[in-house]
């Protein structure tokens, strides 16, 4: 996603901001929530927040898109956690994790972004698994530990290592000279 500076102190500029980022924002929300209605709610809230916030505190040049996506993800995770608090809508109706189920493979297949898919493909399966549950399912490290029946320290360690390795791969793809 290209990072473009926007002056959001006007309606026309806000429309341009919307036109530039709404697909990415909706993609992130839908990716996490899996339901179009919930994704619309989250994206609407994020854009309204941007409209109100940028008017008084414009972001630094080029940061507005990532600002928006961070808000979309945070709010989508709020929705995911609210769903999990409702017993009748257990953890994830679409992706049950049964014994022997290959979560890492499924995780990779669900992350359609090519760079992300490649980066996750370089991870050991156990790191990929916890990172997917944390990043796209919004599970806390405590919930991941309970779900996978792992010690909390193990989950934290895998997240730390997984995130670091993904970072290296993603940055190397952007700047091949880094690894040369």
């Amino acid at each position, binding site marked *: *996603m290209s990072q473009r500076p926007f002056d959001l102190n006007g309606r026309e500029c806000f429309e341009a901001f919307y036109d530039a980022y709404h697909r990415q924002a909706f993609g992130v929300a839908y990716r996490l929530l899996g339901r179009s209605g919930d994704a619309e709610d989250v994206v*609407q809230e994020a854009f309204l*927040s941007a409209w109100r916030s940028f008017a008084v505190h414009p972001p630094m040049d080029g940061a507005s898109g*990532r600002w928006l996506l961070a808000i979309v993800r945070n709010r989508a995770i709020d929705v995911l956690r609210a769903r999990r608090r409702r017993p009748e809508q257990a953890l994830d109706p679409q992706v049950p994790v049964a014994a022997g189920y290959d979560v890492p493979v499924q995780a990779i297949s669900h992350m359609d*972004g090519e*760079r992300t898919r490649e980066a996750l493909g370089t991870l050991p399966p156990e790191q990929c698994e916890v990172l997917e549950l*944390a990043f796209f399912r919004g599970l*806390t490290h405590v919930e991941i530990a309970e779900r996978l029946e792992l010690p909390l320290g193990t989950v934290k360690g895998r997240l730390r290592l997984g*995130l670091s390795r993904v*970072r290296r791969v993603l940055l190397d793809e952007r700047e091949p000279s880094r690894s040369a």
Partner: protein
Amino acid sequence: MTQVHEAHSSEHEQAAALYALGLLDDGDRWAFEKHLAGCSRCQQVMAEDSETVGLLLDDVPGAEPPPEFRSHLMNLVDLPAEPNGHRAEPIRLTHRRTRSFVGGFRIKALVLAAALMATFASGLAAGQRYTANQVLFATPLQSLSGPGSAIVVIRASGVADLELRGLPNPPPGRVYEAWTLDANGTALMAGVYDDGDGTYRLDQSPLGRTLEITLEAAPGSERPTSAPIFSERVVP
């Protein structure tokens, strides 16, 4: 108030990943932020992890919302102000309740902190160098009555500190209380202090809002009940 920072450890680096991923609960998050303020290594790790989260978000394929979504959103943006100057409450499509009065504050603070994190990480990606404890800007509050000074300090990590200097200690049974006010004048509590001299971490970011300090009955009020002693809009 003096803060003692814990020595850096691998557990803190693990916490940085959890922080960037938004996985820490309120208690753990504030504890980590306290450590973060004094640990340059964790500031660097946290900034890198936040950037990684941004890179992953960038790579999520886009999807098109329904055609009417755009016009609906723009209609909400165009909602006229009411005669009392308050903007009509936008229609909320999400029917969530926050856990509590304080919980609502935390969510708003999280969003603002996340936004600053994203900005911070973008700066790093662009080759700019920040440390999380670096001061982005500081705003002196205008004194409306009484002695002393109050300054709000916004740091690159997204946290905000309130520095009170030379205010008399509040009388018995009273406390100083900080508030952030939005454009509609809605006040949210940002902290309660029983000392007129000290540096305090605000419970929520005052960015883009007006920060006020009032004198309230101990242990603190849910709404400001007296005229502000200090007031200023907190913008760069």
